[in-house]
């Protein structure tokens, strides 16, 4: 199914018509979008189009900027990596915001996640209390990050050492076993087996050309003339 990235299954109608029309430029509507963001923060969904509309209003009306909202939008965008959402948000922020706390902190996290340096990400994240404060309003932040890391691992590996996986998802003991089970993976003697999927099968394919009959009508027609 073709889809627009990060559209939740159900977008409220009022939000849909806001995003689609000229009302998205009306500063009075910012609170509706901000409330919608608050809902996303608690129900673990993410609607990037709607959140970009908030940043657009901030871009035009700098007096509206609410630092906490900007922060939450960026934290939300972190949970959607490797989608490009985080940078799409940065492009709408002014230089001052991007070069100051707390945004630089979040950029540091993004940097590690983008490079798939997952172990380093958890070290940084756990190493400073500020990160837990910044992500506090986004419910299930760690869980979302962990799910995305699991996706990256499942795309790359057919089997992986338990010890590496443990560092990537930052879980131990029973929690790790439960996590592995929840993904549908199996662990045996220190190695986790991941079922083959379309991304980790690495099958050699041969591209063959596909000529449709319609493309030949000219030639066939020509041979009749001769």
């Amino acid at each position, binding site marked *: 199914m073709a889809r627009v990235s990060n559209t939740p299954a159900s977008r409220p109608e009022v939000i849909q018509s806001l995003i689609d029309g000229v009302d998205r430029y009306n500063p009075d509507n910012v609170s509706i979008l901000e409330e919608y963001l608050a809902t996303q923060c608690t129900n673990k969904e993410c609607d990037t189009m709607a959140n970009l509309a908030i940043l*657009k209003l901030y871009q035009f009306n700098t007096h509206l900027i609410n630092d906490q909202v900007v922060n939450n939008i960026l934290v939300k965008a972190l949970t959607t990596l490797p989608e490009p959402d985080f940078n799409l948000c940065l492009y709408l922020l002014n230089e001052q915001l991007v070069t100051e706390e707390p945004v630089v902190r979040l950029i540091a996290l993004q940097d590690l996640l983008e490079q798939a340096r997952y172990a380093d990400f958890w070290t940084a994240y756990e190493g400073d209390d500020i990160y837990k404060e910044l992500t506090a309003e986004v419910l299930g932040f760690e869980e979302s990050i962990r799910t995305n890391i699991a996706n990256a691992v499942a795309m790359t590996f057919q089997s992986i050492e338990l010890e590496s996986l443990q560092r990537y998802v930052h879980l131990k003991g029973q929690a790790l076993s439960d996590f592995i089970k929840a993904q549908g993976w199996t662990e045996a003697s220190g190695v986790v087996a991941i079922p083959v999927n379309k991304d980790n099968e*690495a099958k050699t394919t041969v591209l063959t050309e596909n000529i449709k009959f319609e493309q030949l009508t000219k030639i066939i027609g020509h041979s009749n003339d001769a």
Partner: protein
Amino acid sequence: MNYEEDIDIASEVDLVVSAYPVQDDGLDEELLAADQTSQQYQEVQIPEVVKNFIVFFHRNVVENNVYELHQIYEHSFNKLTEKFYAKESWPEPEAISPLVNDDQVFLTLYRELYYRHIYSRLTPMIEHRFHSYENYCDLFNYILNSEGPVALELPNQWLWDIIDEFIYQFQSFCNYRNRIKNKTEEELAFLRDNSQIWSCYSVLNVLYSLIQKSRITEQLLVSKNGGDMQEAAGEYGSRPLYKMLGYFSIVGLLRVHCLLGDFTLALKMMDNIELNKKQALFARVTACHVTTYYYVGFAYMMMRRYADAIKAFSHILTFINRTKQYHTRSYQHDQINKKGDQMYALLTLCVTLCPTRLDENIHSQLREKYAEQSNKLSKPEEAMQVFEELFLFACPKFISPNGPNLDDPEVMNLTPFEPVQHYTKIFLSEVQHSILLPTLRSYLKLYTTMGNAKLASFLEIDPEQLRTLLMMSKIRSRQMKWVSGTLLEGEYQGTSDLDFCMKEDMIHISESKVGRRYGDWFLRNINKFQDILGGLELTTKA
């Protein structure tokens, strides 16, 4: 139609304007006085042939003779510009007013050309910027707020140029306003008191109003899904002037949103325009066609949808190649070539970030223009510099929507916000992660299986670092790609011909290969046989 930004011009403007002895709010009067002196000067100067031209021009506007206007607009005006006004402005509108019976509509159109000529050939001063804005307001007011639809008809090319130039001058003004150092007190006061002039909201308002008045969205939906076009278009939209202005405004919004760094919204503007449709309206004006694809491709690139960007750039570059002989004569030839070069540069970046087999013609052109840069992009130590160079050369001239806060007494001491630098920085921080990927790829291509540690030693990096690199490369090789529907829709697809998987510490590599192509072979041989048959028939006859 001028894509160049006049960075060095700001200081000259300052010099000239500060030469006026201006009181606090007397700027306009002073400027008016200056206008009048130059007007008297101009009156004597108008050559007979130009006078005749203006009279002829006026008559054809009044008679709505679109065919003649096309000639006038694309040829005569430019010819006369070369001959008389290559280095000075066209006669002041007030000076030609008697020639056209003081026809205000014609004078507004004339001013549009008059200011556009100043922007493209000379140095626009602050009063030109303001008056040109006012003139656009007059023009759009006339079109949008007259009683009922206006009878005016203009060539499509001109209508496109009106929208294009309106946005260009907006962009030019934003950059001018951003450079507050070495502006005079008067200029600053003027900017402070007229903050609504060339504001984002006013520009968006014009473009959206044209879209609404023309009911172009409804018309596009009918042409896509069927229905009654007359009813959808309504009183205004059924006239070509409104329809085309509405349509061009959609492309205009695509551009404005790119300039403001909102790439998602930019592509959303195109929701109802089918890019793949033959005979799409944007193709009626070459400059519009090229602009559309440049901004669509650019927005895709910024959204990391490199495969879609490559497709957009390849499409339009093929078009430019094929139609070369037609537009060499056009006055827009240089602009189109420049945009073409920029798109080859962007294509070079995209192909580095997402290795793709290009169309043969495009590929050879790319090698011709950017072979050296292309090679450097695959070398980690040189890549970043080339990424920056090509991006700066090829990106749109981004704007800051608000400009500096002139009420802040500290503002003169702050470093001005440079939007282009800002966007470049974010883009570079993103591609920086990818600079090792071409090297990694070249190694992977040589093997079918390989130990992680061994490859790490080849690359001279830590084995753990290689693993993260491999994961990153895997993630980057899956992209959202357009399949059907609106431009923002897509499916996740693999975009690389090289794939791999890891079983613990062992990398298994697979490469997709292109099978033998039979079509070409058969076609060539069918032709050959036809020649032989033809030859045989001739010999039997003889």
